[in-house]
């Protein structure tokens, strides 16, 4: 078994190790840290043979590096992962905002006809006097429209400004308030 793993070390240093065997080698090195010494000596041989000069690295060269890294833990976050996480965040946020806007739009659209159909107190008292109150509706309608318009435009701007990738706003205000 030892011979087998030593042969893998030899292959690894010659860049001839199969990818499948790399995991096995890593596992063995974790289990038997003394294998690092074997790799170090093999490396030294190569150095000495090719350059007639043996660079003698400290025995604890690798250990020292490991200890220093342990003292200052550092979390590795590959850029691609971060970008994906950010994208997911914006996608979720955009969907939540869009859903909220859609709900508000539905509620507002349902509340308007109710106001129009509700009889005023004066009409309730006098059934015979049927008087429409277009003036009152005319005064409240633009206010609601203005608010809805502002809200939708803010939502629209937010989506485009923050540039959620591959996302289109569910409600896009191209020209609002035009008949």
């Amino acid at each position, binding site marked *: 078994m030892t011979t087998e793993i030593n042969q893998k070390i030899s292959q690894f240093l*010659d860049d001839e190790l199969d990818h499948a065997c790399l995991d096995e080698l890593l596992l063995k090195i974790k289990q038997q840290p003394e294998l690092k010494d074997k*790799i170090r000596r093999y490396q030294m041989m190569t150095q000495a043979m090719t350059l007639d000069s043996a660079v003698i690295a400290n025995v604890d060269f690798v250990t020292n590096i490991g200890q220093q890294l342990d003292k200052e833990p550092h979390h590795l976050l590959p850029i691609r992962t971060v970008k994906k996480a950010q994208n997911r965040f914006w996608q979720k946020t955009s969907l939540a905002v869009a859903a909220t806007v859609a709900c508000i739009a539905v509620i507002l659209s349902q509340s308007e006809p109710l106001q129009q159909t509700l009889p005023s107190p004066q009409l309730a008292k006098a059934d015979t006097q049927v008087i429409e109150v277009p003036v009152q509706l005319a005064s409240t309608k633009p206010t609601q429209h203005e608010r809805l318009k502002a809200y939708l435009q803010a939502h629209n701007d937010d989506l485009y400004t923050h540039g959620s990738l591959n996302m289109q706003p569910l409600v896009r205000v191209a020209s609002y308030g035009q008949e």
Partner: protein
Amino acid sequence: MKEQKGNNAELDKELVLKVQQGDKAAFDLLVIKYQHRIIQLVNRYVKDPSEAQDVAQEAFIKAYRALGNFRGDSAFYTWLYRIAINTAKNYLVSRSRRFSDYQIDVQDAEQVENVPQLKGMDTPEFLLMNDEIVNVIKVAIEKLPEEMKTAIMLREFEGLSYEEISQAMECPVGTVRSRIFRAREAIDEKLGPLLD
């Protein structure tokens, strides 16, 4: 000169990926693989052996911290090489030392290592130890059976792949693999006691 085979970059890339996923043992393997080359490189700038090792260690630590941003556009060693040179230069600047500014092209990383006058570690102790190690290895190679000696020399001196050696020696790749390994083991038997 030892050639860089295509598989080399692939294996390194895989190890880097493992490090990025949090496998520190994979980083250890990269350190062990390149420690001698990096120490030798740093030694071009930092002449003191023990300082050179410290600077090389710092270079590896910087590399580890930056690995999250390594996208594999270049080979891992080329990337590490740049970090090591910058670390060595920064070290000298911080120590306000005067040093000759070698204009080393990053592309020439492999060639630089093989320049004969690289021996910066010229303390008497180092030279003595160095001579002894080189001598032991040479004697051990001379004592190897012919087919093992040929295999290890084609690998180390000519930089041939196992496949190329198998063609040159007219034997299966598996035999080449075994001969090179056994040659190393035989040399290691002589080298081990010297380093203990």
